[in-house]
């Protein structure tokens, strides 16, 4: 592996995020280096999605700054940020029909000029992304005929076709069965090993423990803990953040957290 002298793919400095008048997160400092997988944990309404959208540059921070590959979003040429970071948003209803391939090709938008049409190379990238999510042979299907899990994998495939350096994932495992949950996390693990940065909101503490290099734990009242996964994932911290007592169970090298 070559030495990496590039700036962190993502950094937040003294970042304060609010919803309405309420600060959901105060003075956050994080860096995501190439190869890092940061998992954001916290109870419902703790501001995980709001934070993710702020990190994606879609929402102004109350205070502080977000740096994408070393620069604030505003400093990147308009539209170029979409080549650097991709966001998997929580699924939204579709009001218009489209084919699976058309949907995956959406990820190629940032690379196309105003009058360009998707090239055969773009199509090959989108088909490869579909195949990596187990959707080969689905290209001509209409999206409304897919199951919830298939749609979620399609949304991930569209993000993969975007080929950013930083992946921001809001509940990437929603609607997925166990097999696909692990397959998706393995896929992003492989991308991180190749030098991408991955930030994701998860609800499964044990999957977080298995895949995260770093964890950001939000308490919903503005406080947070950020650090290496094994430092942050302790029964006391998790119990207090989720408001429910947890118990740690050793399973070989791994520690499992179960509700007490």
């Amino acid at each position: 592996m070559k030495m990496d002298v590039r700036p962190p793919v993502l950094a937040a400095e003294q970042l304060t995020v609010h919803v309405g008048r309420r600060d959901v997160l105060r003075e956050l400092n994080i860096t995501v280096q190439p190869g890092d997988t940061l998992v954001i944990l916290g109870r419902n309404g703790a501001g995980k999605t709001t934070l993710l959208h702020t990190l994606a540059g879609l929402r102004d921070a109350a205070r502080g700054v977000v740096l994408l590959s070393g620069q604030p979003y505003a400093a990147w040429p308009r539209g170029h940020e979409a080549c650097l970071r991709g966001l998997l948003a929580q699924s939204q209803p579709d009001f218009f029909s489209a084919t699976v391939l058309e949907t995956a090709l959406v990820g190629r938008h940032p690379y196309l000029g105003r009058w360009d049409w998707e090239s055969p190379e773009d199509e090959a990238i989108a088909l490869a992304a579909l195949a990596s999510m187990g959707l080969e042979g689905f290209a001509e299907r209409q999206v409304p005929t897919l199951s919830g899990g298939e749609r979620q994998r399609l949304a991930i495939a569209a993000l993969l076709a975007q080929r950013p350096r930083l992946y921001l994932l809001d509940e990437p495992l929603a609607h997925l069965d166990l097999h696909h949950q692990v397959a998706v996390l393995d896929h992003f693990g492989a991308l991180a090993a190749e030098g991408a940065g991955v930030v994701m909101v998860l609800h499964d503490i044990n999957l977080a423990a298995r895949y995260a290099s770093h964890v950001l734990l939000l308490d919903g009242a503005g406080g947070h803990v950020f650090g290496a996964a094994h430092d942050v994932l302790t029964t006391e911290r998790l119990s207090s953040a989720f408001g429910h007592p947890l118990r740690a169970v050793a399973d070989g090298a791994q520690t499992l957290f179960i509700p007490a």
Partner: protein
Amino acid sequence: MAHGHSATHPAGGGMPVQRRRALQVLAGLVLAALAAFVWSLTAGALPVGPGDLLGALQGGDGSMEADIIRSLRLPRAVAAFACGGLLALAGALMQVLLRNPLADPYVLGISGGAAVGALGAIVAGATSGWIDGGAFIGALGATLLVFGLARGDGSWTQTRLLLTGVIVAAGCGAAVALMLSLAPEGRVKGMLFWLMGDASGATRPWPALGLLVVGLASVLPFARELNLLARGEITARALGVRVTRLRGLVYGLGSLLTAVAVTTVGSVGFVGLIVPHLVRLAIGNDQRLLLPAATLAGGVLLCAADTAARTVVAPIQLPVGVLTALIGVPVFLFLLARHPR
């Protein structure tokens, strides 16, 4: 689809499949538009053979046929075509803007405002120029009112815009009903014709045609961004689309197109709602193809419907809006039943 796999791999080289298909569809619609024009110019109480049409259009011989075609049928055919295109384009834009398949050009109260303006002018005994002016002022007034109210707090969500539009339209509807009930007997028929949409008085069609060309040309560069906007604001913004600017363009342009259309031919219904859906059912929802195709298809539909309106029960002329609904509704239901989605 059994042959789905082959379609995903365009046979090497040349244009991608989708783009070639786009050009075929558009070429077909251009031919349909030409056919609609020929029918519209030749049909009527004084039939003209297609062979004599070119000579009459060049207008050298000064015959009665040439005069009728040049001063009556041509402006009317152009007005119907242009306004059909304007309404279909505006409808397609509004459906993307509001992410709502039920949206049409009138959903934000534009036709209601235009009707109040036009009917007010008719009640006041104005001539046709003032009726057009009243319709245009009413349409723009309703647009500004809805826009101003909907973004009272600086943001504007689709739901808020839609609700404000529906309420303003309801208010305009009440005002129209009031004017109809108070208007002198002799003017009610003209008011009803205006409300149903009628191209017979369209003597100045060229501004509408010009706006159609300019409007389509100014929105096509943003067609792929509109594809993303139709998938949701977050998706579009995450992929680098300047959503606020794009929405402003779509809203302003959609309103202007609709205002000019209702000013020219009255509030013709169904074209703006049904044509974008017809085209979508036939060729999918890629705005790069959908917007020009819907524009042409809307023009063809209204041009043909207007020709039918003045010929099927001649010498009685029907309001064209009634015919667009009578043609559009069964065709739409047929296509919908054929494509279970």
